[in-house]
């Protein structure tokens, strides 16, 4: 199955940064091919990947999930499992030393390189840092292993390294365990670990994907700062906005093949390949042209606002925890008119998902009232509540996680009918066919299992299921954030079309402002359980009132339009010399 197709031409075109043209690149990868030996033969996941990374260079490997971007970088560092088959070369050239081919050097030599000449930053700092030992040991033992420092020296440098990545009070924080730090601080600590030995190259695998947008921007600014000090970087990302913000060059990967390589500005301006164009076109941005949606509902017929379908008054949820009570949702009130969409925007911990579950009464509120269709949900007995829930449905974040894995697509879609004892099995199946057509999937999928579908298809199935009972009200909890960028917009547009045709009201929970802009009529912005701003969508984007809303908007990294320049950090310069 190993293909020798040469879709990847040797590096051509002008480099964005011409400064290093004369010098040898730090990292030169050529013909990298990675496969995995499986019982039924070798499955190739990366084909013939070549790129070269100049000193001070920053290169983005861009692609969707399964494109082979992470695997290729792990192959270079020898971090793949035993059944991996790796070919090609990856020559690392440190200043003033002959090149070393990481793929043929052997484990002992590569181990000396890892962490010393090549640093790695992972997506999830909580998993990548050792939870049972404090930061100090994780940072220092690294230097001691590599023989770069003795004990007291290592401690001093570890404190410095934490300071360099913008962790306040490094002397105190170095004694902490990873779980005692916030997500952003953990990511900074991991970057400190990856860079403490001043490696020639840092490989960052989706370093900000798990972070909130405002924190993401801070971390990216830090990486840019370190790059300016002399660190060369390969960044793996699915987010073209992130790639544009941080990197000079980009390599677009698809199913393990190189599709296109170009300076990122040029790639975004005039992509040569159709696939690159489709990726760019599919990217969601704030400030895009939003297709008009016809509001079918009877909103302002006589100039008076019609009765709200959903009324939430002073809703509060307090979770008791060991460290004291946590107010997840703090006296939130909102109204949702029939057929309208209300976006709820917030970062992690803002209480937006708790709000969604409170509204559906999947969890019990501490206080406050939810009225749906004129009925106080809090006053209903369990049985009556279950009957009421027919009118209100939910689409969850993880499409696969919310479908029954042991049941076919048809059974999953018909599940709400089955639960509520509606129709005969045949009628339910017929209805499943109709619903599947409604979400633009053919009947061929009826008897497939969820795992055989792509993420986007799974989410369509989940939407079909949510519509089976013809609800008046739908809650979407981050309905597209688990999907690849190329299908997010399709699923959002599908939701909007369905809404115009069926007239349900939508409560859209999301962290992504672009999602809200595309779908919502009104928006509320939540922070730490409280609503900090509420406005018509257009007004919110044109004229944000609250400083937090403004911070959210500023943290957006657009793919189109004007370039956001990385913000200068107020961090001290560091001498980037390998020690």
């Amino acid at each position, binding site marked *: 199955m190993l293909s020798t197709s040469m879709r990847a031409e040797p590096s051509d075109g002008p480099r964005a940064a011409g400064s290093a043209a004369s010098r040898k690149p730090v990292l030169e990868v050529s013909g990298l091919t990675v496969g995995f030996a*499986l019982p039924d033969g070798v499955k190739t996941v990366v084909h013939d990947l070549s790129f070269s990374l100049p000193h001070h260079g920053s290169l983005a490997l861009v692609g969707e999930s399964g494109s082979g971007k992470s695997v290729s970088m792990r192959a270079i560092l020898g971090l793949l499992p035993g059944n991996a088959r790796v070919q090609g070369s990856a020559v690392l050239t440190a200043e003033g030393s002959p090149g070393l081919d990481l793929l043929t050097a052997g484990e002992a030599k590569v181990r000396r390189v890892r962490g010393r000449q090549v640093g790695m930053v992972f997506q999830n700092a909580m998993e990548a840092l050792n939870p049972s030992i404090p930061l100090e040991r994780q940072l220092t033992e690294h230097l001691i292993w590599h023989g770069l420092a003795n004990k007291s020296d290592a401690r001093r440098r570890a404190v410095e390294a934490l300071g360099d990545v913008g962790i306040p009070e490094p002397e105190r924080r170095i004694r902490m365990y990873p779980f005692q730090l916030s997500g952003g601080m953990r990511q900074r600590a991991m970057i400190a670990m990856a860079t403490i030995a001043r490696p020639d190259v840092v490989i960052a695998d989706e370093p900000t994907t798990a972070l909130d947008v405002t924190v993401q921007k801070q971390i990216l600014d830090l990486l840019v700062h370190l790059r300016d000090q002399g660190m060369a970087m390969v960044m793996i990302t699915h987010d073209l906005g992130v790639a544009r913000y941080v990197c000079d060059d980009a390599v677009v990967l698809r199913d393990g093949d190189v599709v296109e390589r170009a300076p990122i500005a040029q790639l975004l301006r005039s992509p040569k390949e159709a696939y690159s164009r489709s990726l760019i076109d599919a990217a969601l941005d704030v400030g895009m042209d939003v297709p008009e949606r016809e509001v079918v509902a009877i909103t302002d017929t006589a100039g008076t606002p019609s009765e709200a379908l959903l009324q939430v008054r002073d809703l509060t949820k307090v979770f008791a925890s060991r460290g004291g009570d946590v107010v997840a949702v703090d006296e939130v009130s909102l109204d949702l008119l029939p057929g309208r969409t209300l976006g709820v925007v917030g970062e992690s911990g803002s209480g937006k998902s708790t709000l969604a*579950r409170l509204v*559906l009464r*999947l969890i019990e509120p501490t206080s406050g009232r939810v009225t749906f269709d004129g009925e106080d949900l809090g006053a209903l007995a*369990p*049985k009556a509540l*279950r*009957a009421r*829930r*027919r009118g*209100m*449905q*939910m689409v*969850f*974040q*993880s499409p696969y*996680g*919310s*479908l*029954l*894995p*042991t049941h*076919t697509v048809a059974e999953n879609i018909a*599940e*709400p009918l089955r*639960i*509520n004892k509606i129709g005969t099995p045949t009628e339910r199946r017929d209805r499943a066919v109709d619903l599947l057509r409604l979400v633009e999937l*053919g*009947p*061929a*999928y009826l*008897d*497939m*299992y969820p795992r*055989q579908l792509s993420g986007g298809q799974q989410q369509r199935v*989940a939407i079909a*299921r949510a519509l089976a*009972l013809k609800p008046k009200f739908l809650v979407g909890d981050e309905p597209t954030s688990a999907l690849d960028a190329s299908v997010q917009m399709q699923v959002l547009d599908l939701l909007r079309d369905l809404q115009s045709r069926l007239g349900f009201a939508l409560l859209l929970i999301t962290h992504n402002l672009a999602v809200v802009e595309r779908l919502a009529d009104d928006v509320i912005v939540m922070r730490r359980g409280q609503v900090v701003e509420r406005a018509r969508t257009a007004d919110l984007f044109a004229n944000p009132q609250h400083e937090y809303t403004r911070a959210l908007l500023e943290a957006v990294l657009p793919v189109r339009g004007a370039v956001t320049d990385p913000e200068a950090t107020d961090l001290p310069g560091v001498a980037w010399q390998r020690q």
Partner: protein
Amino acid sequence: MTATVKAPAAGPGPITISLPPPRSEWSRRAARFRRNRLAVLGLALVALACLTALAAPLIAPHHYATINPGQEFLPSFSPGHLMGTDLLGRDVLSRLLFSLRTALFVGIMAELLSLIIAFAVGLLAGYKGGKIDQWLMALTDVMFAFPGYLFAVLLVAVLGRSTWAVILALTIASWVGQSRLLRAQIMRMKTLEFVEAGRAMGAGPWTLVMRYMVPGALGPVLVTTSFGIPANMLAEAGLAILGLGVAPPTPSLGTMINEGYRFVQTNPELIAWPVGVFVLIMLAFTWVGDGVRDAFDVDES
């Protein structure tokens, strides 16, 4: 596992579909089980043991309790007595077949009963939580504090030596662990998104537990079940060796081993046959358990 779906873009005409036969979760589990050769062998052995045990009255050459004076201690492969005779001249093969019947009946029944209790307790505690959970778990704590085997000895001593007394004793000694396992599984499942989705669709508690949670919780429970049956059989044999097993004349592997042990120096085959069969069955169940574990191991590929 890709599907090729050809749908004409426009115009009439049938939609041609070629799909791989969809495989249900259970058929995929069966395939994973089959991949483990030892498990298949184990399952075959268990099935064989169950069949012979069931058919024991039909295939046993003699009655298990018929005493034949003058024919004591016949060696194996004697005419009419394939495995020889014991100290009372009883046919060892016939006794072995009926012992197997006893052992399997006790082992499977005790496991089944403890499963029923475990499901009731585990599902209730895991799903309801709160006070009910606290009380039920306090009860299991108390049960855990008793050494299970001693408890069984005590019970048989009180209830007398009958098959059902042994089953009851083993059940009481083994339901606790299963209950805790099920409770933990249900508590884990409760937080999964599709269970929440079920609630959002309007599913009641019974549907949620039986349709959404139990299938997912079944894997580890089936694994412990396939290890629990031989454990019960072993415990039954142990009770028999202590003279607390099922009442004579019903034979049991433990009784046979206990009697044979006295003549181990002169007639080792008296103990070799029951021990050999016992070891084989224990191994078979263990292999099946391994296979079940493989079957429920979710592989992502």
